[in-house]
């Protein structure tokens, strides 16, 4: 169906604008913008109107049958929705907002998208070009403000620039290491007519920017040599595998070499969790064996990951003994944190394809068993407790049960905090692109709008947001967006009545001094109902299964609030700045 739609859009693009009839003027900048979106097969945008973007919203009015627009309740919601959309679908998310506060409200999602490599094009209105620099009404220097947090930005002051700049914008956002692009669109350039016919040429390469996709053969050979010599090789894969659509290639590579592998937080779901070579995920709250074994391997094969400090702890002590193969599309990431003996600059998919014929078939049964031995320790000390059927409901039980009921096939969107880490630990992912989280920035308030965006990007999938009681209140207004859309977004609040993750740190590292972490929460269900979304609260363990069924069976958006143990801690934990050898299980 997607394809059909695309063909239609393309025909429209060809037919509509180019041949201006006699006496007819050319497209306005705003109309040209709409044509650019069509040419890039954009089917959904997320936005919020206002003065400086009104000509573009006016143009949009003629395109609503071809470009679906969602009116959010706050521009931050538009940004995170575009991120959720992009992360689940692999396509570029598009936002449309007004100048000044519209633009500044979008800063958090832009900063989130750059650090989590999410392709996004943000079209932001700007005051008329003759008013630039005069502190005009709702004038914010968006180029100045966004430069440190976006991949590229450009101010359009002439309608003739629109097609060329937008073609660049979409190319830059999606290629190489993806990221957010900001287009600062002056109001007069939106309203004025172009002086020539609209012609759109997709950009596939730029003189100053052409990221290497296919790695160099000599780098591949060196990497293969290192991998083949390894006695205790270990693969760490990250978000790059999902971005590069290299899920199958990774699976083939792992199965041929029999090398044990682990994921980063954002790499989750790139490998089915039940695969015998999959050892879990690593990082601050990751699993025991995957963390500890970074100290035991002789060759570490890092694929599409960047040795974030939440992964390495003290990076100077991380995997010190290991020789490192680093497959990475962004040359500035290589050697940034860990020196790589065999760097491979290129796309993960291409790199794995090229490595395949060069790597040996392996059997690492013994080495893999060492991981499994450690798993037992984690199971006894952590998992049993987390899933123990005593006292108040625990977050882990909810997630584990949801995982069973959805057969590990739902698209899970999480917010930031304990519930996020617990979800990463207990959901058994079977399908790619199923874990959507704000990893690098850790933006509370991400999940409601991102769940919505994910549902827009994958309407046929079950999308479940798992959200903390604190986070829920950061973007609660987007319940209105969800209700108006009619989409069946499912949300679970894991309510511990605390900013749980911060409380945990205060308990463990600040001597139990609970400084402003307890919440007086509203009645979430009444609020949801007020927005037109049904829901209920589950307080007792014996109702949990039914509660989840009720939520999953709902044909409409649904909010399930689960009252969970208030002062539960997430383990394992590698305290910030320490080495993985100092990992705590209790």
């Amino acid at each position, binding site marked *: 169906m997607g394809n059909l739609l695309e063909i239609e859009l393309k025909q429209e693009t060809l037919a509509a604008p180019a041949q201006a009839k006699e006496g007819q003027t050319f497209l306005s900048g705003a109309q040209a913008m709409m044509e650019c979106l069509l040419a890039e097969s954009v089917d959904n945008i997320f936005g919020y109107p206002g003065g400086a973007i009104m000509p573009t919203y006016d143009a949009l009015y003629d395109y609503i049958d071809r470009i679906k627009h969602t009116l959010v309740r706050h521009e931050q919601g538009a940004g995170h929705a575009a991120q959720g959309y992009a992360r689940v679908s692999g396509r570029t998310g598009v936002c449309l907002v007004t100048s000044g506060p519209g633009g500044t409200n979008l800063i958090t999602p832009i900063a989130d998208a750059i650090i989590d490599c999410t392709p996004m094009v943000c079209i932001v209105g700007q005051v008329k070009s003759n008013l630039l620099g005069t502190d005009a009404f709702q004038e914010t220097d968006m180029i100045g403000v966004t430069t440190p947090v976006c991949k590229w930005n450009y101010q359009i002051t002439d309608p003739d620039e629109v097609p060329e700049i937008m073609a660049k914008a979409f190319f830059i956002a999606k290629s190489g290491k993806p990221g957010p692009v900001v287009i600062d669109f002056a109001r007069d350039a939106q309203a004025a007519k172009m002086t020539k016919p609209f012609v759109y040429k997709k950009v596939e390469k730029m*003189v*100053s920017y052409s990221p290497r996709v296919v790695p160099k053969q000599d780098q591949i050979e060196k990497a293969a040599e290192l991998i083949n010599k390894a006695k205790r090789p270990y693969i760490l894969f990250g978000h790059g595998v999902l971005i590069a659509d290299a899920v199958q290639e990774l699976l083939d590579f792992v199965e041929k070499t029999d090398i044990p592998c682990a994921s980063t937080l954002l790499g989750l779901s790139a490998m089915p969790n039940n695969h015998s070579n999959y050892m879990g995920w690593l990082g601050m709250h990751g699993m025991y064996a995957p963390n500890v074994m970074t100290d035991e391997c002789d060759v570490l094969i890092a694929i599409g990951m960047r040795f974030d400090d939440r992964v390495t702890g003290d990076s100077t002590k991380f995997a010190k003994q290991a020789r490192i193969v680093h497959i990475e599309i962004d040359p500035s990431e290589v*050697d940034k944190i860990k020196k790589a003996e065999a760097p491979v600059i290129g796309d993960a998919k291409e790199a794995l394809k090229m490595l395949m014929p060069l790597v040996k078939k392996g059997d690492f049964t013994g080495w893999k068993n060492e991981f499994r031995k450690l798993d037992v320790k984690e199971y006894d000390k952590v998992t049993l407790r987390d899933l123990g059927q005593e006292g108040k409901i625990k977050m882990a039980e909810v997630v584990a049960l949801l995982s069973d009921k959805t057969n590990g096939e739902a698209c899970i969107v999480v917010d930031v905090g304990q519930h996020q880490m617990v979800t990463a630990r207990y959901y058994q992912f079977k399908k790619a692109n199923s874990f959507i989280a704000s990893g690098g920035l850790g933006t509370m308030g991400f999940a409601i709008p991102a769940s919505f965006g994910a549902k827009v990007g994958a309407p046929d999938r079950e999308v479940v947001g798992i959200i903390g009681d604190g986070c829920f209140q950061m973007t609660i207004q987007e319940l209105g967006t969800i209700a108006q859309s009619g989409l069946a977004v499912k949300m679970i609040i894991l309510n511990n009545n605390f900013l749980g993750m911060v409380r945990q740190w205060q308990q463990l590292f600040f001597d139990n001094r609970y400084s402003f972490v307890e919440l007086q929460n509203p009645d979430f269900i009444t609020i949801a109902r007020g927005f037109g979304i049904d829901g209920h609260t589950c307080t007792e363990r014996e109702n949990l299964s039914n509660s989840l069924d009720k939520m999953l069976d709902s044909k409409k958006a649904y909010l399930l609030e689960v009252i969970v143990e208030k002062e539960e801690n997430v383990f394992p934990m590698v305290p910030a700045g320490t080495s993985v050898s100092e990992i705590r299980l209790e």
Partner: protein
Amino acid sequence: MTTYTICVFTENSIGLLNKITIIFTRRRINIESLTVSETERKGISRFTIVIKHEKREEVEKLVRQIRKIIEVLAVFGYLNEDIVYNEIALFKISTPLNGKSVDVETINKVYKAWVVYWGLDYVVIEKTGTETEIFEFFKYIKPHGIIEFVRSGRVAVGKTPQGLIEYLPEEITEWEYYL
């Protein structure tokens, strides 16, 4: 602390200076001097940025971060011995009617500096050279009374036989030469 000279080749677009300098500020690296001009090829600008740093690795990382800016075409980082470099300084020196007159011969022959403007009771002297040479001259001329002193940023060319532009991405070689 080692001095590094970083040459950045870019497309000539608005806002690029900001995009480049924030890479330094974010890492708390102070820019000692900065010079920007168009190169021998039209539409390509050349930034020459001088910094001091203790760790070569960090400078290498910095160079890669600058390269990442979309409009940047190429970045080169150099130690002093890899380049020929100079700065230019202008000295406005007071020459009151009955004061000590400047010794033009010494200025020319010893210091390789030139009087470029004669005012009524001052002269402007231009001195080109390295930072050290300029400051030697500064010491020499100071007793005359320096009314104003200004020193440019560094300009530098590599000691390799090729021009740096030859390292730029291929397509650019087709660009028009700047005359």
